[in-house]
């Protein structure tokens, strides 16, 4: 169903393999507090986490546990209230908007639960939205072929199913050849069979492009496809375990 990944990507994968133990992200004592008028919410209360190159981690936890906040901070969408976050040794926690924008533009691919496609643009144009602004992107058609949508490129979001829309979002995220792929509940709005197709795409990108990947989910079954599972609860990491035997996404059931 999916096209094979072309050569340049494999070269990138090989290059990544050399430094597979390199730390991409490092979060130290990260807290995040939201002032919501009369109440304050402590979304993160001192989180320590690192992510290595080519690593596939799953962040698991109930809603409100702080997973999305952590992911947003790692992705440069938000800044911590205290603590530090570094990306390849560069400090993100104190970076200004322009720096974080440049960081997102060049290094991070995002996938959201609700796809967040621009409804007025076709699948190909949604991907082009990214390829137009980054150095050395892959052609939008190629990114869409990787996620198995080579034949749906000229469809508008409203003409695509949920799973297809999410795969467009993934194509959009990987088209810039990011070093990290951050996915926030990518299957949250999907049924099992479409969810599996989406996870297969993510899995494959991690495996074949060597993109460090963090996937947020509240679905424990999804955790078995990761190298490592980090569990959050109430703003704290309560478990961090390796998963030596990965399950293939297509074998998942929930």
């Amino acid at each position, binding site marked *: 169903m999916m096209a094979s990944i072309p050569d340049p990507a494999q070269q990138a994968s090989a290059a990544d393999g050399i430094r597979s133990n390199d730390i991409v992200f490092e979060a130290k004592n990260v807290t995040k507090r939201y002032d919501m008028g009369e109440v304050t919410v402590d979304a993160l209360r001192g989180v320590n986490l690192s992510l290595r190159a080519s690593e596939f981690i799953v962040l698991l936890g109930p809603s409100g546990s702080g997973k*999305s*906040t952590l992911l*947003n901070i790692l*992705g440069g*969408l*938000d800044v911590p209230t205290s603590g530090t976050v570094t990306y390849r040794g560069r400090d993100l926690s104190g970076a200004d*908007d*322009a720096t974080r*924008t*440049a*960081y*997102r*533009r*060049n290094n*991070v691919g*995002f996938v*959201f639960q*609700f796809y*967040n*496609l*621009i*409804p*007025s*643009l076709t699948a190909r*144009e*949604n991907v*082009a*939205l*990214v390829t*137009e*602004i*980054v150095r050395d992107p892959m052609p939008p058609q190629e990114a869409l072929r990787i996620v198995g949508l080579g034949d749906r490129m000229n469809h508008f979001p409203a003409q695509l199913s949920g799973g297809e829309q999410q795969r467009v979002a993934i194509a*959009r995220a990987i088209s*810039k050849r990011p070093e990290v792929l951050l996915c926030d509940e990518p299957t949250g709005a999907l049924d099992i069979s479409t969810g599996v197709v989406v996870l297969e795409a993510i899995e494959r990108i991690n495996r074949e492009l060597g993109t460090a990947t963090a996937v947020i989910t509240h679905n424990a079954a999804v955790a078995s496809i990761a190298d490592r599972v980090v569990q959050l609860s109430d703003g704290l990491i309560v478990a961090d375990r390796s998963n030596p035997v990965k399950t293939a996404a297509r074998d998942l059931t929930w």
Partner: protein
Amino acid sequence: MQALDRKLFRDLWRIKGQALAISMVIAVGVLMLIAYLSNFNSLQSTRDAYYERQRFGHVFATLKRAPLSLGNRISAIPGVAQAETRVVFDVALDVEGLAEPATGRLVSIPERQREIVNDVVLVRGRYIEPGRSDEAIISLGFADANRLEPGDTVGAILNGRRRDLEVVGVGLSPEYVYTIRPGEMIPDNARFGVFWMGRRALGAAFDMEGGFNDVSLLLRPGTQVEGVIQELDELLRPYGGWGAIPRDLQLSHWSVQNELNGIRVAGVIIPIVFLGVAAFLLHVVLHRIVAVQREQIATLKALGYQRLSIALHYTYWALAISLTGTLIGTVCGALLGRGMLSMYNDFFRFPVLEYRLDPVVVAGAVVLGIVAAVFGARTSVRRAVRLQPAEAMRPEPPAKYSASLVERLGLRRLLSQPARIILRNIERQPVRSAITIGGIALSLAVLIVGMFAVDSLDLMMDMQFRVSQRQDLQLTFTEPISPDGIYSLQRLPGVMMAEPVLSVPVRLRSGQRSRQLSIMGLPHLPQLFRVIDVETLSPADLSHDGVVLAERLAHVLDVGPGDSITAEVLIGSRPVREIAITSTVRQHMGLAAYMNIDAVRRLLHHDKTLSGGYLTVDSQALPELFRAIKETPAIAGSGLKAAALKSFQETFAANLGIMIFFNVLFASIIAFGVVYNAARVSLAERSRELASLRVMGFTRQEISAILLGELGILALLALPLGLLLGYALTSLLTKAMETELYALPFSVVPSTYAVCALTILGATVVSGLIVRRKLDRLDLLEVLKAKE
């Protein structure tokens, strides 16, 4: 094309109705700007080129009679490039097909054509031939109005003798771009014409061989006009000079200049109002767009789009709408401007009135369009830029509502649930409600400003022709005659009543300020030509020896009641007197001074003290009366009030109709733009809520009532505000357009307010109904399924 630009075009296409409504408001503003200012440019450049080519004079003087040899001394005044001495007389004309006598201004021109000051342009026919004393070139307006062509003849009474003048040519002169009989307010082409005739012919007819009674000067560039006038006055004083005037005060030039000033003011103020409204509308629509697209904005930011790209993206929205409007407005403005210019052909006579659209004007329109767009987009763009992506990914929290003021006042029980929804909505978004109210109010104000001219002119006409002047006919003698002459006027056939008038040219002086005009001597209780204050409607007191000044004249001279003023009489023995100012009187037009006729007579020291009369006439006897007048050489001219009124209506009524049409159209465009956008935005924001109500069993009528009821309340609130705003804007505009000669009276009759208000309500209802159709098609399932 960049993906972001594609998004822009597709998003705009989706809201095309709203976008177009705003574009149209901008288009109207730009249209006005282009039409007015291009007319300003066209008239000005045409006029300047015409003046230059035909050597229009810089200084004009009239005198009793001076020997031709004085011409050399006038030419010798430093700064004078050319001095043209002329013979100019007003005479009565007998035109075939015109019952009443017309007035002809005979102006001498050289027998052999040469370059003269105020040179005549021949439109048809030929120049006069030397030695043919009865040939005349006549002014184009008069020729057209009376269907006169070269070869026709016109009867004229020259110095007491009736002559048949042969029309050999039809022409125009820069001196008579605006051809109006002195002392009248409306041009009457059929009854006043200029006749250019040979110098010798006129000299012989008026005992002016070897003399002249009029002079025009062309000055060298950079010459001080005041100094030349002073020297000219010195030279002419012994010869009965009336005092020279600069070009600025020359009647035709002055009228054209006033019109130019008027259209420039209108061309700036009115477009600003329209573009202001458009900026508000852009604000409302973009505010909504940014709210709807907050997740898209967050996504773009997450993807790494910079603040600048986001800011530009939303600025382009406004610019695309604005520049579309600017484009439409420029094209339509150029078309309308062309039409407007041809309308000016009815008032101003130029050989060629060429339409000219200055690129600077277009550039100005584009700049204004961009300013409106940027101004309208400002806050929404800032919101989009400041949006925190992490925050925007979460759905917007439910809007905060509270009990409305009406409910807090304890009236809650009186309100149904839908009524509460309406009131809470209006209160929850005070800024947007205010903008909607303001926009509708502005559209009403614009309409009132447009319609006010009709009421204002009506009032002016009413004051002039019904309240102040109650005569049917006004007669002017070629020269003042003995006061007994009033009895011969009374004896003319059909005359019921005759009232004397003595008009004396004077220069009124107070300190450094002075003006030349005629003091009108009237009986102390005039019955026909009455001096009425337009505010109090009471007649001025003419029983004293003092002078009554039109308030505007008092203002020009910086004097008031109780002051005294120096009057230099410009005829006869030229006495100079200090005269007390009895009172001032408010009048719509003119710089006039009135005195008791006996007091003026005492001023003059001579016995020829009747310059004309005001008559009431039995209309049955009019033909007979006109025949008698035509046979009376002493009568230079007559003015029939009914004819003047008719000519006014013919000239203005058609133009006024066109003006009203456009005003209603333009004001409706604003009203429609405001209401339609307000309704569409509400509909978009609340379709979910309204769909939920439908699911719960509310009928279409009921949910329409909620949405449109809100608009209805806002429109009703806007009406009083719009009336006030219209009132304020009208008085501002009358002030801005006030000139030395006239001030449009500030008058709007209640029925006009009512018609304007109903027009705006109509536009509101129409836009409401269009939105209502959308509401009826609301897809319940689709709306409720979508997350927002």
